[in-house]
């Protein structure tokens, strides 16, 4: 109804970047080590774990949102955090959604490293940690893909952040929830423009990520 000001737009863009960026950072810090460990592990339960991780990629955002809402609600077990309808709750939701992507894709990338590589490294006297680090470097394109996928999942997700964030103007309204709102109001042109801004943002972030893989596209 009220025309959207440029200041509103930038605050929405900033919030989207901050929430999804933080979610990707957290899920990467947790997920990459997990993915490396899973990818190198040759234990028997590994296939089952891999299936669980891949199932996590299919988590419906709106269900994650609902479960998080029930946990964070003032009637829920995590009420003391007082974080419902805040950016923190939205970061938590997106982290949960992005984590399986980081773990799963990192795992596949690491598992694709030559099987004899760890043996060779050990025979050269590498410690366990040196061994992991070298394999991680070897699989870096795959890991960057994992980070890019996590960002894609986070920035484009709407179901979870709508529930735990509440789409509050100036507090928890991000690009995707703004698109939902404007579409609902019938402002299709503006909703489309917001969608374009989201894609542009994703492109910029991915150009960054490609830049960090040394100029070559992540395989």
């Amino acid at each position, binding site marked *: 109804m009220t025309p959207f000001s440029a200041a509103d737009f930038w605050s929405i863009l900033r919030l989207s970047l901050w929430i999804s960026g933080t979610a990707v950072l957290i899920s990467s810090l947790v997920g990459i080590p997990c993915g490396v460990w899973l990818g190198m592990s040759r234990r028997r339960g590994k296939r089952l774990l891999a299936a669980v991780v891949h199932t996590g990629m299919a988590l419906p955002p709106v269900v994650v949102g609902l479960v998080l809402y029930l946990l964070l609600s*003032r009637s829920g077990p995590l*009420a003391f955090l007082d974080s419902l309808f805040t950016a923190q709750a939205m970061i938590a939701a997106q982290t949960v959604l992005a984590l399986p992507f980081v773990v799963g894709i990192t795992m596949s990338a690491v598992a694709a490293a030559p099987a004899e590589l760890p043996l060779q490294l050990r025979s050269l006297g590498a410690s366990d940690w040196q061994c992991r680090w070298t394999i991680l470097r070897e699989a870096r394109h795959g890991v960057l893909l994992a980070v890019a996928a996590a960002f894609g999942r986070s920035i484009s997700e709407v179901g979870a952040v709508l529930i735990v964030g509440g789409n509050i103007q100036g507090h928890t309204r991000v690009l995707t929830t703004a698109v939902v709102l404007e579409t609902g109001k019938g402002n299709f042109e503006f909703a489309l423009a917001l969608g374009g801004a989201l894609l542009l943002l994703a492109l910029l972030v991915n150009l960054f990520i490609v830049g960090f893989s040394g100029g070559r596209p992540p395989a």
Partner: protein
Amino acid sequence: MKWMQLVVLIVVLTGCARPQHDAPTLTLATTTSTRDSGLLDVLQPMFEQETGIALKAVAVGSGQALELGRRGDADVLLTHAPAAEEEFMAAGYGEQRRAVMHNDFVLAGPASDPAGIKEPMSITEAFGQIARSESAFISRGDDSGTHMKEQKIWQAANIDPQGDWYVQAGAGMAEVLRIASEKHAYTLADRGTFLAQRDRLHLTIRSAGDPLLRNPYTVIVISAAKHGNVNREAAQRFSDFLVSSKVQHVIEKFGVERFGQPLFFPDALPEK
């Protein structure tokens, strides 16, 4: 190492983007019509300036708004679902409930009028005509205040709406109006949203003015006895703010300039 640079970059990037909020906050759960009509955009800055309290307005259907209140996730409610609100108060979730304003619902439908709704016809008769002619009707189907009102009218008309002609959309008011417009169907809408969307719709008002179509909005302060951590004081200030004569006059004039008629009628002015 490029990895470290990437991590540092993300930290710096997100650190810069982090928004700051220090003011005390009040969480308001309200119906979508107050937001979509633009009324909230007028009242929110007034309230924040007057009290220094940051108002966080979550706009959802009245059913969900009441549920947020029941769970203590909102400090104050502004809703339009009288029966559900009375139940809410009786269960002790609300501490204080005051009338703020009202508007009315209208039956919107295609100009071709397949159900043959002639004025003057009561809203229950009009609903009866729609059911008899099996003309398409789009229901909100989302437990919102509008949906509850619609169910009440079917009930009053002794009709159990069922069949291909009765579509449950599960969508917001503006969206349902659009669906009705596309499908040449009837729907029940609050006058404010209908007026705001009118230019985009191929719908006209087919029936209005029946006393059953009155749509009262009330403000409810959530009981601190049920949920110790609600912001009781700020909620009371918001309630007082809404019924203050200054705000009541703002409500009275809201929309007149843009739509040629008010969208809401104040209910807490002393002379009323």
